[in-house]
């Protein structure tokens, strides 16, 4: 799954490449489309945002699990 941060990083890359010199028109349009797609997905991520609180619990075998916190 692509994280919000990865999407933003990709968007920055796209913007930077579009800023570059002598870009093929077809490449520019391809980047534009990818950018729009990423923007749409990232906006959905933002709308879904909610803070969750969990607690780190180390089990006897040294593995970890996350318990949902009550508060």
């Amino acid at each position, binding site marked *: 799954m692509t*994280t*919000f*941060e990865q999407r*933003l990083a990709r*968007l*920055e890359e*796209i*913007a930077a490449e*579009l*800023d570059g010199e002598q*870009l093929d*028109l077809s490449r*520019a*349009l391809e*980047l*534009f489309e990818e*950018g*729009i797609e990423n*923007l749409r997905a*990232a*906006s959905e*991520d*933002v709308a*879904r*945002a*909610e*803070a*969750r*609180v*969990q*607690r*780190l619990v*180390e089990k006897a075998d*040294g593995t*970890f699990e*996350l318990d949902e*916190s009550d*508060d």
Partner: protein
Amino acid sequence: MTRRRTSRRTEAAEPDLFGTTPIFEPTVPLEPTAAYVSEYIETNGYPGETARSAVTVSMLTETARDVIEGAFVPIWVRGEISDFKAHRNGHWYFCLRDRAAQIKCVVWNRDQFRIPAAPDNGMQVAALGRLTIYASRGEMQFTIARIEADGDGLRRKALEITRARLEADGLLALERKRDLPRFPRVIAVVTSPDGAALHDITAVLRRRAANVRLVVVPAAVQGQSAPEELCFALDQIDRWGGADLVIIGRGGGAHEDLWAFNDERVARAVAACRVPTISAVGHEIDISICDLVADHRAPTPSAAAETATRSQDELRRELARLSAHIVAATRANIRSSADRLRHLARDVAAASSDHVVSRRTQLEAVAGRLHALSPVATLARGYSVARAKNGTTLDSIGAFGEKMTFELVVRDGVVPAKVSGAPRANQ
């Protein structure tokens, strides 16, 4: 039967033949037949009353200790430190003195965690301790559990020492500071699960509707076990590996309550943490060693949460910025492509017209030369050419026969002609 007691503390486990706890145990062995205190006293007198009932030295000092310990509650005593010695067994020995008196003091190894640093000779301090008798030397001794130096000297000394050690190891260097992730997904919070800090942090995250998961890693933030628990929590986070940012801290409190965050072990654990760290200890004015080592120092836990996360509004603004950038850049690309196309078209046109011009010039030059050679131009100036029927040019009087017909070629055509007389040669 002899009955030896090395310590009154073990007494409870033994049968008490006297039926009541005696103050003194006599050196003269208790006869098995003397079942009652009254009988014993009748025969020997009170313990220590006669030579025969003399008590042991241990008995004396132990009893003195009991009396003194019973008479004094823990008490703060002010004085000057002298003859300080940190023994290799880990305990501290020194004297507290004023002008007229002094008392031998000890701080057991196990009590030293409450004292920020070893005191220096000459320091004016207030010390909390209990008065006791050190039996094996028969000396009065003040057993100290806490020391507060005037001007908070011990804490300042401890901070200086810790700071210098961390600095020597390069752990305070600004180049070490890592950037915080702009959009952390999982933030580990090392703090007390019941403390104000956690409450403040979650409140901020809820208000901002930040898109993060908060993972609480509980640790005591004050008290003897706090440094170890804080270190352990940081270690757990590293072993777990699921966090991309750590907030370590606690809410405000008394100076000594924040002390665990000045512990060198905690500072080193923060420095060793594999993910970027924000330290948020107490209020704005409290600056801890932990703050100095962390990648970022937040004045309060709430501020740490604000620094760590972006609000929905910020995220929307960020997306809007990127969107505008990408649209503008794409437009610029399309424009520059169109410009390039236009330039290209002009270049092609220009190039081909150049070509035509040069061909024309060439042609004209050739034509000019041809023209010069051609009789047409001469004819144009009014001359004519005589030509025989077969096309040969008649260019001398010898070529003309009597009454011969021929053609005159003039500028705009041909005229039939006939020789009408005898040709005359030029003079």
